[in-house]
């Protein structure tokens, strides 16, 4: 049998009890092991709903969800939640410990991690989010960005098979955000883990292997970041945008500069300009 997908959504439709419309309409997609997928889409397009379905916080009216081959249902729910580490938009609802270190320890104890291994993981996860020295602070009294960092540390520490970050870096500055993404990327290079980042930050999208674009409760498009950001006009129509480099590239093209590939990073664009400059 071939390797099952890490996450699979088959024809998922979901409506909130209080909602007057379907939040998700016949949504299907797969995420492979060790894949990093970014989910983007306008406000209310259904991204957080997808995240909550992934660990069984919500149950779809129709369709089936599998996590690592396990169907997400009442019977498997605890098994599923052990595999999925999730950070929400607002970490306040997620803190369980009275201090930062307790909060991280709590998750580890729940996962039955041994004492000395616990200490090791608490240390590296706090370092990974640059919150060393805040061990004895109360999570609720941290700054907005510090809360997000600690919530991310708690999830990194339990080393889940699947990491879901739902706008988990929205309160960080660009450098902080980048450093968290690099940490996650590093984790992925060391062990098998799939990553789902839900974000409005276009530069964060560039870390992903693949992008799922949501629009009005439906999957609008799937593709690599390069493919997706090539659709600048269409993205604009559904409330989205392209990164600075894409915008500048497009303006340069309209000035007659020939770019061979769609650049995504500063360096790629600079190299393309250099090629154009030095061609004879």
């Amino acid at each position, binding site marked *: 049998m071939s390797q099952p997908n890490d996450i699979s959504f088959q024809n998922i439709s979901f409506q909130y009890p209080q909602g007057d419309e379907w939040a998700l309409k016949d949504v299907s997609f797969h995420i492979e092991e060790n894949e990093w997928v970014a989910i983007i*889409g306008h406000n209310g397009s259904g991204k957080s709903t997808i995240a909550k379905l992934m660990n069984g916080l919500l149950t779809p009216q129709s369709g089936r969800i599998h996590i690592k081959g396990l169907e997400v249902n009442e019977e498997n729910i605890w098994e599923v939640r052990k595999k999925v580490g999730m950070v929400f938009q607002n970490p306040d609802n997620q803190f369980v410990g009275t201090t930062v270190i307790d909060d991280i320890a709590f998750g580890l104890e729940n996962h039955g991690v041994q004492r000395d291994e616990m200490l090791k993981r608490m240390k590296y996860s706090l370092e990974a989010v640059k919150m060393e020295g805040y061990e004895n602070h109360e999570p609720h*009294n941290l700054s*907005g960005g510090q809360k997000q960092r600690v919530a991310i540390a708690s999830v990194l520490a339990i080393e889940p098979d699947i990491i879901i970050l739902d*706008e988990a870096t929205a309160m960080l500055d*660009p450098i902080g955000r980048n450093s968290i993404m690099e940490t996650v990327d590093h984790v992925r290079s060391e062990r098998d883990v799939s990553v789902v980042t839900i974000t409005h930050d276009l530069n964060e999208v560039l870390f992903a292997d693949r992008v799922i674009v949501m629009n009005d409760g439906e999957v609008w498009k799937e593709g690599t970041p390069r493919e997706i950001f090539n659709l600048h006009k269409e993205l604009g129509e559904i409330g*989205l945008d392209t990164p600075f480099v894409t915008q500048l590239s497009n303006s340069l093209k309209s000035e007659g500069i020939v770019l061979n590939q769609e650049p995504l990073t500063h360096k790629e664009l600079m190299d393309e300009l250099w090629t*154009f400059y030095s*061609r004879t």
Partner: protein
Amino acid sequence: MDILFENVSHIYQKNTPFEFKALEEVSFHIPAGSFAAIIGHTGSGKSTLIQHFNGLLKPTSGHIRMGDFNITAEKKVKDIMDLRKRVGVVFQYPEHQLFEETVEKDIQFGPKNFGLSQDKIDSRLPEVLKSVNLPEGLLSRSPFDLSGGQMRRVAIAGVLMMSPDLLVLDEPTAGLDPRGQKEMMDMFSRVHKETQRTTILVTHSMEDALKYADYVFIMNHGKLVMEGTPLEVFQKEEALNQVGLAVPEVIKFLHAFESRFGQSIPFKGQSIQELAKEMTEIVRRGVKDE
């Protein structure tokens, strides 16, 4: 509203094991009518600072003047309700300011509480909903049964309803989709100009600071370390890096362009299209020279 801080320090949970100095001897003046941005890395004291503007926090030492109001450690703020009526704060996490049963009640809470007539409230509501792009269909929903970006819009609407003299925005675009971010900032900027109010924006978006603010303050570990116009401040790439901040992407790119092509394009607020023109000229010249 004129804002004056003189040697303001703030210590959280003083005389407990959790004691933490979040602001240290901060002094500045923001003239009425300014659009000022406050920038700084995680935990540098931005949210602490702005919560002093409406007396939610009081300085541990130092003196604050907000228009005619005085805020110090010793005295109770006189007419604090009046101050809160004139200073509208949009908090960093919208959940912290939503609490009513329905979106509609939530948006109306502030103005009702401060004695605005129902007529006035009713007449302002549609306009405010439009300016934050919130569908009327959501009015009867609980504010907690919304998506993150929708909650953000409700929180902003509630503050706009009060038409405050001073509008304080703590990361107001976090959670908004790209179009929403742009529309919201354009709206703040438009209303700022129309009403000649004072606007304070706490942001991690250097792009927004550059585009919308006329003055920028940089915080680091509770201290005010730099101030100036956005163009002045954002030219100091090294100094910003030292306090853990990056310059706006456009400026970073122009600096890299200069070191690659040996020609500088000074940034004066050009649009991307205008910059592309200037770059094209330089890059084409290279081709001709060859």
